[in-house]
């Protein structure tokens, strides 16, 4: 049906087309801002999808790494004198290291215990960011210097739209490659059954840790981008609610699907903007819509819709296994 293009290439091409085409419909810079937020949140969600959808581990402290990335861009230039942009890889390396150190003991835990441990990690980050007033500016947040590229100050929602879009595309490309690699298949195996995977010779602990580090690096890069785009960051970027939002993005978009995470991010960023007309009912409606999506598209929006379409085209609905439903 898809000719010679593999599913991976179709996805990448589709994403590139969407990123390139939607600005044609933007009447004002506000739309660029919202779309850039979708791409940045999408990047964090894609990272989390590697951990949740591919390795089957839940993290409720993902925003902690986002916060690390953002604060790296705020504190890095202040403490080391490095340009802001250089602090993005610095934050990513730091987050990866922290994830590696923290992940080793945490990832021995399973299910609920793992979720609670990651939750604790996220809270710890928020507490430090809030408490270390002198360094981080406390709950009032901290300024991030404007980015300069070859002496040219990067500002304006439109520029950030392209930067964020490019970063997301790269992120999706890497995540899809990972999914189709031996590592990805090992992750899929341990996602379905850790015991079975171990019996087959998969080093479960090492693969889980890898996925955790990958997710942390994605979140850190997304956090850095978000921070540089806003020129400002407060500790609530690393908070529990924001962690929950990213988990929701992955689940609602379809945790088995990399582009699904982007769809989930788009939904959670766009819905609150679209629902402002309802004033007091805004939050109730948001909750209701999320519930409806989860009830009627249980595998998530993207795999769910793909399943429905395939069912309609082929006449017979195929049962969609969690690891097999890759859009």
């Amino acid at each position: 049906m898809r000719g010679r293009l593999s599913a991976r290439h179709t996805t990448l091409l589709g994403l590139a087309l969407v990123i390139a085409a939607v600005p044609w419909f933007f009447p004002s810079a506000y739309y660029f801002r919202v779309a850039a937020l979708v791409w940045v949140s999408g990047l964090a969600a894609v990272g989390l999808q590697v951990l949740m959808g591919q390795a089957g581990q839940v993290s409720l402290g993902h925003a902690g790494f986002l916060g690390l990335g953002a604060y790296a861009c705020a504190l890095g230039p202040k403490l080391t004198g490095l340009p802001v942009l250089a602090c993005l890889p610095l934050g990513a390396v730091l987050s990866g290291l922290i994830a590696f150190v923290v992940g080793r003991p945490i990832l021995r835990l399973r299910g609920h215990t793992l979720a609670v441990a990651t939750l604790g990690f996220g809270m710890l980050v928020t507490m430090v960011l809030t408490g270390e007033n002198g360094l981080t500016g406390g709950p009032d947040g901290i300024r991030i210097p404007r980015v300069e590229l070859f002496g040219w100050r990067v500002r304006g929602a439109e520029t950030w739209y392209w930067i964020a879009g490019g970063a997301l595309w790269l992120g999706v490309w890497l995540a899809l490659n990972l999914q189709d690699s031996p590592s990805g298949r090992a992750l899929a195996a341990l996602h379905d059954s850790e015991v079975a995977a171990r019996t087959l010779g998969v080093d479960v602990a090492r693969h889980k840790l890898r996925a955790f580090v990958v997710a942390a690096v994605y979140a850190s890069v997304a956090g850095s981008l978000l921070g540089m785009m806003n020129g400002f960051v407060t500790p609530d970027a690393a908070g529990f609610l924001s962690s929950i939002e990213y988990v929701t993005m992955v689940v609602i978009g379809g945790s088995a699907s990399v582009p699904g995470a982007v769809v989930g991010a788009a939904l959670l960023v766009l819905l609150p903007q679209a629902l402002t007309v309802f004033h007091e009912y805004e939050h109730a409606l948001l909750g209701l819509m999320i519930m409806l999506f989860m009830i009627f598209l249980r595998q998530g929006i993207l795999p769910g819709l793909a399943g429905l379409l395939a069912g309609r085209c082929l006449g017979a609905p195929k049962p969609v296994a969690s690891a097999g439903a890759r859009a």
Partner: protein
Amino acid sequence: MQVPALLRRVLLAGAALALATPAGAQRSGEPIRVGAVLSVTGPASFLGDPEDKTLRLYVNRINGAGGVNGRQLQLTVYDDGGDANRARTFATRLVEDDKVVAMVGGTTTGATLAMRPVFEDARVPFISLAGGVEIVEPPQPYTFKTPHTDRMACEKIFADLRARGLSRVGMISGTDGFGASMRGQCLRVAQAAGVTVVAEESYGPRDSDMTPQLTRIRNAERVEAVVNAGFGQGPAIVTRNHAQLGIRTPLYQSHGVASREFISLATPQAAEGVRLPAAALLVAEQLPEADPQRRVVLDYKTAFEKEFNQPVSTFGGHAYDGLMILVEALKRANSTDGTRLRDAIRATRGFVGTGGVVNMSASDHMGLDLSAFRMVEVRGGDWRLVGN
């Protein structure tokens, strides 16, 4: 879902271009768009909710009385839920999409600082309702604020101390944002106020006993007064422990506890004699007839309590002040052009609001002096206006 709205916008933009009127030109009949991003929900909702109610109430009243310069006000309120990132997105939306002429909002200092560049870049006046000094220091061309700062609270406390002939202070502060910020400001202005901080202690937001810290303060050399920079229930515990230890030196609390819950939490017996700087709104009925703020404060209190059937708070008062400063500036400027409006706001002199008498200038984008704070004392379980 977006397409019809989009199409309409494109057509509107085309129509606007076709009619191309010079920037800031008056178009009678067309409403004046005013924006607000507030933390109506979330952890800061106790601030944002009365702000939201106040803005809606007074925009309706102003429109009922014929609007401003013959035009109606159109208020757009967005709820940031206490999230600075979301606040920034809504700020962009107000400027780019809703085309507001000014913004009255920004519930927390964090949200305000996150939104400030959006309004500065667009040259749209922004009147913030948050406390932080850094919002207007150094002054940014288009950013203003209405609430008093914690530095002024420190100065007010120290001035009262000096008036009682006291100068040696033991300070105890919470480690939360409010306490930490006020502590820093107090230490900064102590010397200039002629006050020496001889002992310093702190407590965590969830501590339930401050006896050790207070004992250390009591034992410090010749302490003449205790000052508590804090917010929430910490100060109530400090007040109780202060009474339990039988410490006789006067206790000062901050403007952060200026609510009736503080007295009941601390118990009226323990709180007896505690002083704190508060906005005039807290003691509206006790203000002397000649007080310039009396009428404004009483009017606002009556209007708010009648409409919403809940006690008035100083936070809503900040929103009232912001909106009224904007309305007066709109009248004076007789224009909605950002820079002209900014100049008019900056030229605010002798504006009597709930937070004090406002005199702005190019170097002072808040315009309040120490007379904005009233020193009150707890007597018999209620607030009493003392001194000045």
